[in-house]
């Protein structure tokens, strides 16, 4: 089962090492990990996607909470939340194929952000599934390069992660 865990951590050096080290030492595999600023400059948000059964995830969550520099932890599994992954992808596209590809881009509500003689670069955001579907469709044209940010998550409605007293 895929779990999206969001952790509010102290914004200081060494925190990433604490988190990554804990995962490595306990043999938990990280699917993706995104670190970014939050509305409060003292804290950063780490969004971590981990695959594992509920029992393992329960341990991951508890071990994360145990880290001194981790302020709050929340597992988004089953929660009403938005998940977003951002991708830049360069597809092989000679002039005769460009319109075909750009219509796919439109269909997925992506954007063409760069065009060269033989390729175009597309920016696309959405759930991981949506990105995978797009990748599958453009694969026949030839994928030159691909970069993804990994998933970030936020709960819908009024509650904020900081409201959830998970500790």
């Amino acid at each position, binding site marked *: 089962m895929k779990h999206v865990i969001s952790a509010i*951590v*102290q914004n200081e050096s*060494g925190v990433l*090492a*604490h988190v990554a*080290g804990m995962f490595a*030492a306990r043999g938990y595999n990280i699917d993706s990990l995104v670190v970014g600023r939050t509305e409060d400059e*003292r*804290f950063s948000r780490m969004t971590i996607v981990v695959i594992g059964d509920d*029992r393992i995830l*329960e*341990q991951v969550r*508890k*071990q994360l*909470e*145990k*880290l*001194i*520099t*981790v*302020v*709050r932890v929340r597992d988004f599994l089953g929660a009403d939340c938005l998940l977003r992954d951002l991708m830049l992808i360069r597809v092989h596209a000679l002039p005769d194929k460009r319109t075909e590809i750009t219509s796919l881009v439109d269909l997925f509500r992506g954007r063409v952000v760069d065009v060269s003689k033989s390729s175009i670069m597309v920016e696309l955001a959405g759930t991981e599934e949506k990105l995978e579907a797009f990748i599958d469709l453009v694969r026949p044209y030839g994928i030159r390069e691909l970069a993804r940010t990994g998933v970030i998550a936020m709960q819908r409605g009024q509650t904020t992660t900081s409201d959830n007293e998970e*500790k």
Partner: protein
Amino acid sequence: MTKKTKKDDTKATNFSGMSGAKVFEKMLRDQGVEVLFGYPGGVLLPIFDELHDSKIKFILTRHEQGACHMADAYARSTGKTGTVIATSGPGATNLITGLATANMDSVPMVAITGQVKSSLIGNDAFQEADVTGITRPVTKHNFLVKDVKDLGRIIKEAFYIASSGRPGPVLVDIPVDATTALLDGEPDMEMALPGYKPRGGKGNERQIKLAAKAINDAERPVLYVGGGVILSGASDVLREVAIKGNIPTTTTLMGLGAFDESHPLSLKMLGMHGTAYANHAVQACDCLISVGARFEDRVTGDLTKFAPHAKIIHLDIDPASISKNVMVDIPLVGDAKCILEQMLPHIKDGKREAWIKQIDGWKKKFPLTYKAEGKIKPQEVCEMLGKLTDHDAIIATGVGQHQMWTAQFYGWKKPRQIITSGGLGTMGFGVPAAIGAQFGNPDKLVVDIDGDGSFSMTMVEIITSVQNNLPTKFIVLDNDYLGMVRQWQQLFYNKRYSATPHKCPDFTLIAKGFGAEARTVTDRSELEDAMKEMINSKGTYVLHVRVEPEENVFPMVAAGKALDDMIHGELI
């Protein structure tokens, strides 16, 4: 151990203009540090200059590992936080074994390391090591001090983290320039730990009632008690719970002394080398009440077959301990002492005659035994020491067979009596541990029961004992083998003793060279006299006992076997 930081007079102090080294010395005293173990070096010169006429007693050891184990044992034997200091690079890396040892056994300790100048960090400077990087997995937390104005606050935070919640070692790495720099203005001493909310205190009343009901309903309950009870200071209320409910009680290696073994309800230690009656009781029980224990594999044997009939109640201060290895039916998160006190009034007087009778049957059928014939048996040394010291001494151990015999035969009465490396199993722990415990308990008899292999690793610290005029005693159970490993080779590798014969030097001669009194005993007839001589001696004493080389520790649950699938000695 949920003590908050000690009395704090840092607010009244004027720090402005002080050097980092001065702040350091002052903060250590404010945290109640009386003894600091360690070893100097280049980057620590400013700090050692401050320590030179400080009230803090500095103990120079012969190796940083020794210093670290001493600070650890000082903490284990007193409940206070132990403190150790080492220089950058090799000094710091010499602490690693000691930090990992303390971390595994939840020991409150603060380690200070010197670091190269901040501007040189990351440059492969002379004696530079990435100490916060190396020690992260073996500490509860660590800090790198980047600015002298953070130093005081970080030291305060380090002591608080080390001693609160589930205790553990905390390391503070201090670049030399942070010790020479002068404070410009008053630093902010307020702790800033938004992510640290240690559990402790009381538990959830509803859960506690649920647990009490499960206990009252049980016909065959067992209390499985661990190191958490000792850390919490919960052994008095634990005894009350056990007696009120008539609940047989077993302890882990780390829990020895939390329940008086001379009490009829005591099952002594459980696990790989625990008593057969404890293991049978756990396997047969219908309610297992775990208090401050962590279901380690040396205790549970094959997890899938562990306590198959039991409803499991798990009391622990660390939520991550719960359902880590065994799925728990009723979790209780909080401090052992608080929760047992909450629970006691709900426990009904129990009789449980059939259960007690069944257990007494096991006790009669499977006693801990050995045959006092031929060469001196290591077991009889441990047993005799127990009798001669009225089961009241503080006993440190190395790791191996001698450690298990000590656990089985000394006869434990009180918490903080056994000082042993359980989780990491660190050979060489015994000698420095006894010394550290002695510094914390100057008036008590402290004895290290060691193996020839373990003793050889750190015996150099006997010098530290002698030079500080300590009355610490060291017994070496010399079996000419790395016995614990040899036992496995005998049982599972066709007696092929690869790398386990261990030829020893003349330990008495070495001990005398170090300045200690010493005696070698080879014959049973001399043993008691030699033990008494050791106990009555004034100074450091090394008693070298030549014991039966191929004696084995029984019972034994082989790796991966169910807890009641035990190998017994020939006498059962």
